[in-house]
């Protein structure tokens, strides 16, 4: 159906596709399920219908992702894509990552705003110090262990030291960025075994990172009283590290799929945008982590 005249290089315009509509139904079902689940949870109802709708939505999205990406992979392997098409994909991925950067900026912005402005004001310092009248005993320090109203928001007893697990995790993620680069070099040099091994190592490092992160969360919840509802420190801490962790999980999934494709013999030394996109994404989560390590853990 999509057989365009190939005597001159044309831009590939795909034929009709069901994936967009499947995806949009999937997203709708997912958010509807998530919303129902959350509302039931907050209303203390034990109805579990939300979970099931959510699960159905996630399955539809997984089906869509699989089908859509299979289409793209097949089209690419049939040689339907031109260099121009490749540029479109690159731009798409690049701007997508930029949008992710802006998403994280919102949370970093919240962190900076609270630490530099709102917190001191609430303790009666600075230009808008009159907010200090609300809770006259409140002292602002960071990490914030004593919240303005501890009866409603009991603070954490302690926070996580950056020089233990977080430092290890930093080393792990940076190493994984390096190993994925080695994998890329191996791919370009057509060294398939080296490629597979470096990529496998990257995936393993990613998995280790995630495991350590889960251990850290358990420690925070069980031993330190550092939770989502322990005030603004816990809120910013879990929001930033949590969304980062979610992105690492997605990145790990993507790298795993790339690894499976490598093992199936996909990608050539000069045509492997799928690999590169995954690597870009991986570098992006790495850079975000460095920001987190500095601003959430160390400073």
């Amino acid at each position, binding site marked *: *159906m999509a057989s*365009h*005249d190939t005597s001159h290089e*044309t*831009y590939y*315009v*795909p034929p*009709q*596709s*069901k*994936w*967009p*509509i499947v*995806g*949009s139904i999937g*997203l*709708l079902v997912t*958010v*509807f399920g*998530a*919303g129902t689940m959350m*509302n039931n949870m*907050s*209303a203390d109802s034990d109805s579990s219908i939300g979970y099931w709708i959510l699960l159905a939505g996630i399955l539809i999205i997984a089906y869509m992702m699989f089908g859509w990406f299979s289409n793209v992979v097949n089209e690419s392997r049939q040689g339907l894509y031109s260099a*121009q098409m490749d540029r*479109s*994909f690159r*731009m*798409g991925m690049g*701007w*997508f990552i*930029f*949008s992710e950067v*802006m998403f994280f*900026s*919102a949370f970093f*912005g*919240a962190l900076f*705003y*609270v630490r530099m402005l*709102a917190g001191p004001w*609430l303790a009666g310092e600075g*230009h*808008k110090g009159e*907010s200090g009248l*609300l809770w006259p005993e409140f002292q*602002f320090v960071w990490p*914030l262990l004593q*919240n*303005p*109203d501890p009866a*409603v*928001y009991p603070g954490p007893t302690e926070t996580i030291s950056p020089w233990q697990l977080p430092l290890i995790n930093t080393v792990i993620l940076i190493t994984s960025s390096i190993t994925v680069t080695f994998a890329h070099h191996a791919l370009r040099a057509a060294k398939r075994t080296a490629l597979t091994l470096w990529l496998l190592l990257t995936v393993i490092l990613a998995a280790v990172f995630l495991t350590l992160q889960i251990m850290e969360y358990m420690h925070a919840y069980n031993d330190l009283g550092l939770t*989502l*509802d322990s005030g*603004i*420190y816990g*809120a*910013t801490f879990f*929001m930033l590290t949590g969304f980062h962790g979610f992105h690492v999980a997605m990145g790990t999934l993507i790298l795993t799929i790339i690894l499976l494709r490598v093992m199936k013999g996909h990608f050539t030394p000069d045509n492997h945008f799928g690999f590169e996109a995954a690597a870009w994404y991986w570098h992006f989560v790495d850079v975000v982590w460095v920001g987190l390590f500095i601003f959430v853990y160390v400073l």
Partner: protein
Amino acid sequence: MSAVIDHHHADHGHGPAKGLMRWVLTTNHKDIGSMYLWFSFAMFLLGGSMAMIIRAELFQPGLQLVQPEFFNQMTTSHGLIMVFGAVMPAFVGLANWMIPLMIGAPDMALPRMNNFSFWLLPAAFGLLISTLFMEGGGPNFGWTFYAPLSTTYAPPSVTFFIFAIHLAGISSIMGAINIIATILNLRAPGMTLMKMPLFVWTWLITAFLLIAVMPVLAGAVTMMLMDIHFGTSFFNAAGGGDPVMFQHIFWFFGHPEVYIMILPAFGTVSMIIPAFARKPLFGYTSMVYATGAIAFLSFAVWAHHMFTVGIPLTGELFFMYATMLIAVPTGVKVFNWVSTMFRGSLTFEAPMLFSVAFVILFTIGGFSGLMLAMAPADFQYHDTYFVVAHFHYVLVPGAIFGIFASAYYWLPKWTGHMYDEVLAKTHFWMSFIGMNLAFFPMHFVGLAGMPRRIPDYNMMFANFNMVSSIGAFMFGATQLLFLYIVIKCIRGGPKAAAKPWEGAEGLEWTVPSPAPYHTFTTPPEVK
């Protein structure tokens, strides 16, 4: 400008599929553009009906028709639906239809994703509208959804409102990525950046703004969601957060958002005025740089919406001067439009009427904006009808007239028929008179202190409000005429030439009318 067009390629390959599935499964930029435009018009009528309810309630002082709770839901939904459902999708629809035609591209850069962007909108707005029927009612906290109204004190349906915003945001981001990739990657040979039509330029910059701020909005609603259901305290001072922080994050998105709604209109008007003045646009280059400057500055003015909530004096001053600075590039644009018309051979067909009204009335909105930008004066004006007058002057005769002007300008290209000029002029004059009657008196009641978002008011505002309501009903009813004109034009009418407007320029006029299903499968050569 001359171009080689390839008609043979246009109709070999696949034409449109038959039936409903053509629209559901399509990857064609023209199909998707049409769907966006129809969706936007449906939302325009829905949001418009809500405005009618608001104006009916405000026809007289006292409570007559609706309960205050419902009134709040109407102002909230009206704003959200018009901003995210009517204005933004209309411009994305125009972009879909026209950008590939203007730059000589076969389609959008990522056609399947294009359809995904569109089909997320019915999902998002279906969800949003459904909240009105949920227990506890729909969102009632204003389209700006300030915390803690939208968190601690919100109805349970706020959860679904949050997710609806997420879906609409994903749609916008994907749409914007597609537009950037199309413009940067799919231009025909010879179509250099500084030869691009202004609509393409303004959309390039708008798309950048979208990608930069929609994720921030997503972040804001996500923090709300966490505060509501997971016990975080981002916007609650008892836990060390700050409700004012919500406003900072919201307006960091919100101010660029208002430019997202107006820049594409700047673009179309900058193409339509030269066409009917039969003169090239005055100051093309300065238009491009002015657009860039506006977009750049729009990131540094957000707190002009927050002069009264308590920000440090240095903040008030900085945001006041930065806001006034935006008037400079905006003034450059108005100057250029006027100079383009100066000593041109003007004719006033519907697109031109809407464009000229745009220039005059948008400028009025810009001036009231400047008044609001003065922090000490804003202490008086803030949250009064003066603000409502301001943003309706920039949005109705600004964004919406820009959309109408574009629709009439390109309808012959889309349908292959000329629209009915007499009816279109009637549409224009009724809209023009209706909207001025509706919104001009709001300046006066606002300056006299009538607060916005309140269903009842002091007796002394009665006369002006009655005039406003009559104008609003007139404006609203007239839009049904627009629907009739469009349907009539699709169904028949005098055949349109490939280039129905004598003074029009650009690649889109080199293809036949109606534009074939596939155009520029081989890129034209632009000299």
